[in-house]
């Protein structure tokens, strides 16, 4: 264990601009389409509901594509290390949360796509590109996949809250650079503040 208080990342390099861009793009898209999903599924049937469902599905496919790009980028560009003074359990927790978040970023849109197929509503990306239906119409399977889609989403919401809490804890309590390396302008503002 490293006892020395050291706030700099071991690698000394931060995230690439692309990694930061993809993180925030996907983050806002997930929050948006999660909220949309929560809102739309209770609506009575209307043209508006059909529109919202389509937009939600388009968003899901788009997020899926960006997550694949992000994973590819991550494989080619190693993310910076965690601060060296983090306790082992926190490292494990951070690693596990990140792995699970990636798993869910893939699993959530996949479950939505399969659920749509099982319910007999094909996904046509932006109303232009039809995705194949891997499952044929089956009401019971559709209902099961709906439960799964919901469960995966609420798991993701819980993990996102943990992720957010941990980031704030690093920033406010540990005062390390874990949050600022994902929000570069925050670092600058703080530096300016320190100068005053």
């Amino acid at each position, binding site marked *: 264990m490293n006892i020395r208080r050291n706030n700099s990342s071991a690698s000394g390099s931060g995230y690439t601009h692309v990694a930061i861009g993809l993180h925030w793009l996907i983050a806002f898209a997930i929050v948006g389409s999660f909220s949309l999903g929560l809102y739309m599924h209770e609506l009575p*049937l*209307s*043209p508006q509901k*059909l*529109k919202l*469902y*389509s937009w939600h599905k388009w968003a899901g496919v788009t997020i899926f594509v960006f997550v694949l790009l992000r994973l590819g980028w991550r494989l080619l560009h190693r993310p910076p290390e965690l601060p060296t003074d983090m306790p082992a359990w926190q490292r494990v927790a951070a690693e596990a949360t990140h792995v699970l978040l990636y798993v869910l970023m893939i699993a959530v849109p996949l479950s939505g796509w399969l659920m749509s197929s099982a*319910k*007999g*509503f*094909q*996904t*046509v990306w932006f*109303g*232009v590109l039809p995705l194949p239906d891997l499952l044929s119409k089956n009401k019971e399977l559709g209902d099961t996949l709906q439960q799964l889609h919901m469960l995966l989403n609420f798991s993701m919401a819980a993990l996102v809250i943990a992720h957010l809490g941990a980031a704030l804890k690093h920033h406010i309590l540990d005062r390390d650079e874990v949050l600022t390396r994902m929000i570069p302008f925050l670092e600058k503002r703080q530096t300016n503040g320190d100068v005053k």
Partner: protein
Amino acid sequence: MRHCLKYLVLGGAMLALQSNAQAIEFNQVQLAKSSLMFVSKQMNVPVEGQFKSFRSKIAFDPAKPAAARAELEIDMASIDAGSKDANDEVAGKDWFNTKTFPIAKFVSTSIKPLGGDRFEVAGKMSIKGKTRDLTTTVMMRQSGDSATFDGSLTLKRVDYGIGEGMWADFSVVANEVQIKFRLVASATKK
């Protein structure tokens, strides 16, 4: 004696089939083998549906197609529009108003041979109290003592007031609805 007669008639029918296929008329519609499907487009997503209950009367003599007649009566409440929500919705006043108009009807007015196995069927389609002229091309396949009539056509929702009010927005549910039908009729000797 009765049996003998029956076999004689049957044998005669079979002979007639082999030697002169035109001496028969397809007029017993077999509903179990027939189907009435439709495909609507919702946000450009094709969604399949069908009517599960309908009755049809056909009288089709391949030798005299111009004299043929076809009638179809559809129980609108038997619709499967793809989901329970949709089924409840389309029974309502904006869509089929099933309570007031429980039955849709097609009656042929003319049938013209187009050569080969194809026929042009024109007729009057009545849905939700509105009657419109309609023409479709039907493909007939004969096998033994039964004939299969396959056809497809495009209906416009606006012609029959199907999906009014907020549903009149064709950018969500398209105006054009694709209909695919298959009617199987067996023959009885004339």
